Each structure stands twice: as structure tokens, then as C-alpha cells.
């Protein structure tokens, strides 16, 4: 049983960690704000979710599990809200997203409001 916990929990933690790192890389690699929100989202959803799940496995049915679930719930509610609010504010401020094939142009050069 203990071994199973270790294995399942470890795998979950490892998976979460990988998602986190990939998200972090994406945050650096993506060309503009809007495309960066996507990998940032991975870290909050898949990354955070798997890690919390892993911890949950280790915690077992205790008070700790309740708190882990609560943290999960809070991230689940607030992360998309934050991402959405950021994107919306950027759009409202006139930041033009790079679309389609013009990705290779200098990023974030948009200075005119260009809401399609």
C-alpha cells in the first residue's frame, strides 16, 4: 500500500513538475502576451492540478486533503479569471495580438487599438 502511494504520488508529482517546466518554457518562448497566457495556463491547470493531486495521494483522507482540495478549488476559480482579466485589459489598452503568420514580426509592437 505504502509503495503504491509512493508510486502513484510520485508519478503525479513528476507529471505536474514536467507540465510546470514546459509551461515555464512556453512563457519564455511564446511571441506575444496572448500566446503566453496559454502556457501560463498549463502551469496553473495541469501542473498545479497534478502536483496537488500527488500531494493528495500522500496526504490520504485527512484534514490536509481538505485543504489541498481547497487550494485546488481556489486556483481552479481564480486562475482563469486572472488570465481572462489580463487578456481583456491588454486588449482594452490596445495591445494587438499577433495572428496567423505574422508571428515572426517584432512582438507586441501594436500601438493602435485594433479590435477585429
Amino acid at each position, binding site marked *: 500500500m505504502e509503495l503504491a502511494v509512493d508510486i502513484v504520488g510520485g508519478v503525479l508529482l513528476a507529471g505536474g513538475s514536467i507540465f510546470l517546466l514546459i509551461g515555464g518554457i512556453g512563457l519564455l518562448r511564446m511571441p506575444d502576451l496572448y500566446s503566453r497566457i496559454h502556457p501560463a495556463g498549463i502551469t496553473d491547470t495541469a501542473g498545479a492540478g497534478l502536483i496537488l493531486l500527488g500531494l493528495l495521494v500522500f496526504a490520504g483522507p485527512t484534514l490536509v486533503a481538505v485543504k489541498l482540495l481547497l487550494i485546488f478549488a*481556489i486556483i481552479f*476559480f*481564480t486562475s482563469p*479569471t486572472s488570465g*481572462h*482579466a489580463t487578456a*481583456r485589459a491588454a486588449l482594452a489598452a490596445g495591445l494587438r495580438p499577433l495572428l496567423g503568420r505574422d508571428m515572426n514580426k517584432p512582438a507586441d509592437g501594436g500601438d493602435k487599438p485594433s479590435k477585429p
Partner: protein
Amino acid sequence: MKHHRVLRIISKMLIPYIMLFALYVQFHGDFGPGGGFQAGVILASALILYGLIFGIDAAADVMPGWVLIRIIAAGVLIYGGVGVATMMMGGEYLNYSVLAAEQVAGQHLGILVIEFGVGTTVAAAMVGIFFAFAQRGSEDDD
């Protein structure tokens, strides 16, 4: 930001639970230092979130400045009141042991009330600081 539907609805959902969490930290704070501080900050954050979304004026309607400042004061009075109580009961200032028949119980009671005072003051002070900056420009200050 009231018309920001996502923020509005998510915040409305969260606020009651944030407040409950604040009170949970408040009353379970005796296992670590500064439970009252944390609780106060969390409680304040609930109202601050409300103010951010629904506007400072709406938040100030719920918690007007004159109430806020009195709550700050009341918190300090609660804190000091415990001390006065211990003095009245023949102990030194803030010597909680004299508060109850049993020393440990007295200490628990004393800490609980003290932390409550701290939490109250911190919460109100944080909201007050938020108002003080957020309200700038919306009132004539002469």
C-alpha cells in the same frame, strides 16, 4: 469593474468563503505567532476585493470611514482591555493566568481575546489603508 462579468461573478462567489477562512485562521491562530495578523489581512482582502470590483464607493457604503476607524480603535481597546482585566484581577498587565481559575485556561482565553483584538484592528487598518489610497481624488480634502 462591476461590468466585468467574469470578475464580478467569481468574486461574489469567493468572498463569503474568504471571510470564513479569515475567521478560521483567527480562531485557530493560537498554534503559531500572529494568527490575528493573518486573519485580519485575509478578512480585509475580502472587502478589498469587493471594493476593487464594485467600486470604492460601494465598499465605503458597507464600511464607512468613520466606522472603520472606530473598529481599529475598538481592536486596540479589546487588546488593552484584556490587560486591564488582568490588572483588575490582581495580576500583572497581560498576565492571562489570572483570567480563569486554571492558569492554562486563562492563558488560552487571554490569547484568544488578544488575537481577536489584533485581527480586528489589522483588518480595519488594511481596509482603511486601501480606502485611503483608492479613494484619493474622489473626495475633496481640504
